[in-house]
């Protein structure tokens, strides 16, 4: 085993007869920020839900810190320190902001005030709204809450699924700035994005996913300069 925190090998995921993910392999080393980019239906979200244990792979292996996790139930994967801020944020709409954060620490047991405060330092808006129901927040605030909630579990690996989706550009930049901060404080991050430009700017390495297969992998900076990527994902001709 290498010092990879997360390693996928030939992972295949099926929905019935359709292969959404066709044997992908990649790895995330401890302390890295890796991004998976790709268009619609490329299999990005499927990959993440499979790592989280919500979907089961029909082939290949997923290991976390050298231990296989592909047959563990979802809650045990979380207990190992893999936490996801899922696509569409999935805030608990009728819990208060604070309760949502406390839910984030569910796998660890109980949340301490200090943990909540740390998230509040990161996202001061949430502190203002801590008593408000999660469902009443704006889209950007919900995204912050989703990230904050995921951080509450003190993850060894933080996975984010399209944090930019549906947000105003102003918010997107802010959130990516924060992701950079969180990463620089030592959290390993696997970031799934359609907004390739932003994702590659803060990432160390990147993988390009197309129709369930990895078609490119490289340093983020190199990918940014790659012609193919520029054409397909950065909207340049």
């Amino acid at each position: 085993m290498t010092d990879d925190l997360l390693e996928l090998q030939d992972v295949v995921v099926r929905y019935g007869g359709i292969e959404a993910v066709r044997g992908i392999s990649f790895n995330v080393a401890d302390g890295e920020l890796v991004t998976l980019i790709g268009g619609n239906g490329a299999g990005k979200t499927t990959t993440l839900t499979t790592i989280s244990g919500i979907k089961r792979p029909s082939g290949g292996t997923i290991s976390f810190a050298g231990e296989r996790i592909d047959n563990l139930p979802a809650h045990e994967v979380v207990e190992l320190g893999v936490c996801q801020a899922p696509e569409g944020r999935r805030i608990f709409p009728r819990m208060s902001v604070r309760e949502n954060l406390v839910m984030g620490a569910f796998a660890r047991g109980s949340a301490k005030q200090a943990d909540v405060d740390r998230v509040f330092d990161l996202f001061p808006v949430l502190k203002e709204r801590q008593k408000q129901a999660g469902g009443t927040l704006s889209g950007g605030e919900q995204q912050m809450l989703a990230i904050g909630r995921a951080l509450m579990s003190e993850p060894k690996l933080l996975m984010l699924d399209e944090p930019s989706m549906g947000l105003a550009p102003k918010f997107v930049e802010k959130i990516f700035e924060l992701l950079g901060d969180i990463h620089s404080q030592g959290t390993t991050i696997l970031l799934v994005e359609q907004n390739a430009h932003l994702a590659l700017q803060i990432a160390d390495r990147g993988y390009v996913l197309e129709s369930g297969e990895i078609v490119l992998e490289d340093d983020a900076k190199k990918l940014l300069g790659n012609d193919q990527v520029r054409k397909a994902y950065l909207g340049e001709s």
Partner: protein
Amino acid sequence: MSERQRELQRSYRERLQRMRAQRSSARGKLREVIAKDAEPITSRWRALRAWLDEHSKVSYPGLSILLIAVIAFLPLLGEVVDLPSELDQATSGSVLARVMLFSLFALGLNVVVGFAGLLDLGYVAFWLMGSYTAAILTGAQDYSEKIQQGASFTEVQEPVWQMWMWLILAIALGVAIVTGIALGSPTLRLRGDYLAIVTLGFGEILRITANNLTSVTGGPRGVRSIPHPEIRVGDAELVWGTLLDTKYYWLLLALVILWIIAIRKLDDSRIGRAWVAIREDEVAAAAMGVPVVRMKLAAFAIGACTAGVGGVIYAEQVNFINPPTFSLIQSILILSMVVLGGMGSIAGSIVGAAALVIIPDALLREQDEYRFFLFGFVLVVIMIFRPQGLVPSKRRKAELVGGGQAEILDPAHARSS
């Protein structure tokens, strides 16, 4: 800036649309695949199932006539051959008449539950309406009340059958349909599980009403001396006798055949396809222009009139009815027949009714407790291991095995606990 935002918005909307399209097509594929996966692997099973599938819908008229002839001959079997006592009992006219009565009920409920996908737990209410219509219109209720009040048997005339009384069948049919529509129209907009409870409630309300409205229904003492039917044309006469008369079997058999023909026609018609659409996805069906509530009402009314007709024959056959006859357990019994046979399957309804009448009758005579105990068990086991029933309808099977509208949590997400 605003230009860019608009751009973003448009691309987002497009992305969303594409996602939706992808999802829905994936879901359709998924269902097919699951249905295929669910096929048993062993060839023996597959052969048996193929046999069942093939024979669940007898499509050759000659074969059907032969089958009907054999079925009609069944009660006479004991006179021709020497049968073991269990079989003799099972093929006696009275047991077979019960089979046919419940076949009729099961056919009717099958339209509601199997075709339209509406869980009706108060089906007995329509049976009650049919039976009480007969009891009141034949004058039996009036007679019972006078006797109850102390009139001597010579003073009041016991009701006898007259030819106009065949009208009662038509009237009861109408009464049941009206009841069905009256109960259905406020409730059919409800979600499926609410509908189950509300129909159950209506069944109970009607039973309680029959019990309390003594002046109309005779209340808890019930109605007796409901006359047996007869047909007189000139000199020819056909008189039905007491409970055990085999002629009831043939009468009910004729009705069942009539109903099978009618229901099969319906199932293959536009209405039948509308029901499938509603069962699969109500919202989508409505969006496609299917008049959802009207179609549901139609299913409800057809089910109701079936039970109404059965109720009339039942009352005339057994001669005596009282409110406890129409308890919830009867609704559940009929539902068990539909489920056991296979929801949505016409042949299944008959097989289910036959199985649940004959088996307990032959094996556990006069032990209702064992029967209901076993019914309960069978319902759970069938739902777990063979939700499509013994004689599945092809259309329904794919849905039941493939998941349909399943939204209940999958325990595989968190297996150890």
